[in-house]
C-alpha cells in the first residue's frame, strides 16, 4: 500500500474522525449506543455501505453528470443499504431486530453522502476505498466507545457480561435518550480539550459535507 493511502486511512480514524471531529452521523450515534453490541452492529453495517458506495462512486465519477450527481449517489447508496440489510437479516437476525428502523436510515447518514461528495468523486478507487475503511473504523470505534460507556454506566454490563457488581445500582438514565445526549456532549468536550492542547482548531466540515449546499442560501453565509 502506498504511503499516501495509508495516511488517508489513518486520517479517518483519528484526525478527521467523522463523529467526534466532523460531527456527522449524529442520529445513529445517539440512537444505537445504549448497548455496545448494537453500536458495533451499526458501525459495521454503515462501514460496509460506505465502502461499497465509495468504490462505486469513484468508479462512476466520470460517467455521472454533475447536475444529477446527488440523486445518483442516493440511489446507489439506497441500493447498497438494501443489500447490507438483507445480509444482516440473514446472518445476524438479532442485530437486525435491534437496529430496526435505523438500518434503512443509513441511506440518509450524512457520513456516507458526505464522503461521496467530499472524497470519492475526486479521488481514485483505491484511495476512496482506504478513505471508506478509515472513516468506517473511526465511526465504529466511536460508537463502540460511546456504547461501552453507556452500557457500563447504565446497565453495569459490557457486551452482556456483568462488569459492575450487583450491589451497585446502575444509572439507568445513561441507557435512555438523555444519557445519549449527555455522553456525546462530554465526549466532544474531551476532544475539544485534546485539540486545544495540540493547538489545533476543529476542522469544520460545514456546508461542504451537506448534499444540499448548492441549493441552500445559507451555505454562502457559512452555515445554518
Amino acid at each position: 500500500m502506498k504511503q499516501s493511502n495509508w495516511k488517508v486511512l489513518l486520517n479517518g480514524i483519528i484526525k478527521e474522525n467523522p463523529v467526534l471531529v466532523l460531527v456527522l452521523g449524529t442520529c445513529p450515534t445517539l440512537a444505537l449506543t445504549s448497548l455496545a453490541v448494537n453500536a458495533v452492529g451499526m458501525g459495521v453495517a454503515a462501514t460496509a455501505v460506505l465502502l461499497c458506495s465509495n468504490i462505486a462512486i469513484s468508479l462512476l465519477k466520470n460517467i455521472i453528470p454533475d447536475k444529477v450527481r446527488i440523486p445518483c449517489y442516493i440511489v446507489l447508496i439506497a441500493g447498497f443499504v438494501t443489500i447490507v440489510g438483507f445480509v444482516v437479516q440473514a446472518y445476524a437476525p438479532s442485530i437486525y431486530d435491534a437496529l430496526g428502523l435505523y438500518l434503512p436510515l443509513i441511506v440518509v447518514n450524512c457520513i456516507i453522502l458526505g464522503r461521496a461528495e467530499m472524497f470519492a468523486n475526486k479521488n481514485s478507487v483505491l484511495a476512496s476505498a482506504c478513505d471508506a475503511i478509515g472513516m468506517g473504523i473511526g465511526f465504529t470505534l466511536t460508537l463502540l466507545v460511546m456504547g461501552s460507556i453507556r452500557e457500563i454506566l447504565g446497565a453495569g454490563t459490557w457486551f452482556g457480561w456483568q462488569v459492575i457488581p450487583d450491589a451497585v445500582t446502575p444509572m439507568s438514565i445513561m441507557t435512555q435518550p438523555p444519557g445519549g445526549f449527555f455522553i456525546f456532549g462530554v465526549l466532544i468536550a474531551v476532544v475539544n480539550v485534546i485539540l486545544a492542547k495540540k493547538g489545533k482548531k476543529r476542522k469544520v466540515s460545514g456546508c461542504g459535507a451537506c448534499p444540499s449546499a448548492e441549493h441552500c442560501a445559507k451555505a454562502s453565509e457559512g452555515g445554518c
Partner: protein
Amino acid sequence: MDTMKNLLVILITAILTNNFILNKFLGICPFLGVSKKLDSSVGMSVAVIFVMLMSTAVTWPIQIYLLDPYNLGYLQTVIFILIIAALVQLIETILKKFIPSLHQALGVYLPLITTNCAVLGVTILNITEKYSFGEAMVNSLGAGLGFMLAMVLFSGVRSRAESESIPACFKGMPITLVAASIVAVAFMGFSGVVDGLFK
C-alpha cells in the same frame, strides 16, 4: 368513538412520549443546526410537517397498492427516498411559481429536508407499525408537531445557554448536547401521560 380515541392516542404518543427528536433521535442534524433562532426553528418545523404529510400521503398508497401486492417490499428504501427527494423538488417548484411568499419563508429549509432522517423515518415507521391510511397521516402530523415542539422549546434553551459563561471546551456543540439531554429528561416525564389520559 373508538377510532377517534385511537387516532388521538397515536397523535399524543407521537408528539410527547415518542418524540422524534428527543426519544427516537431522528432529525438530530436540523435540531442541532437550525435551532439557534426561534424564527428559523419554526420555519424548519413547518417545512418538515408539510413534507412529512405529503410524503406519507404518497408513500403509503405506493407501499400498500404497488409494492406489497407484487412482492416488491425490498425496494422500499430506494423507492421511498426517491419519492421524498422528488416531492421536495416538486413542492419547491410549485411554491416558487404559485405562492412566492410561502416559498420565501420555507424555501431555505426545503432542500435540507431531503436528507432528513425524520421524514424517511416516519414513512417507514408508518408501514412497519401497520397503520391504516388515516392513522399514518395522524402519526406523521404528530411526529411533525413533536419535532416543532422540541425545536421551539430548545431554541429558547439554547439562546440562554449561549449567553452564559461556560468553560471553553464546552462551548458550542458540547453545551448544546448537554442542554438537549436536560430537555430530553423533561420529555421523559411524559412517558405515562398517554396511559393516564386514556385509561
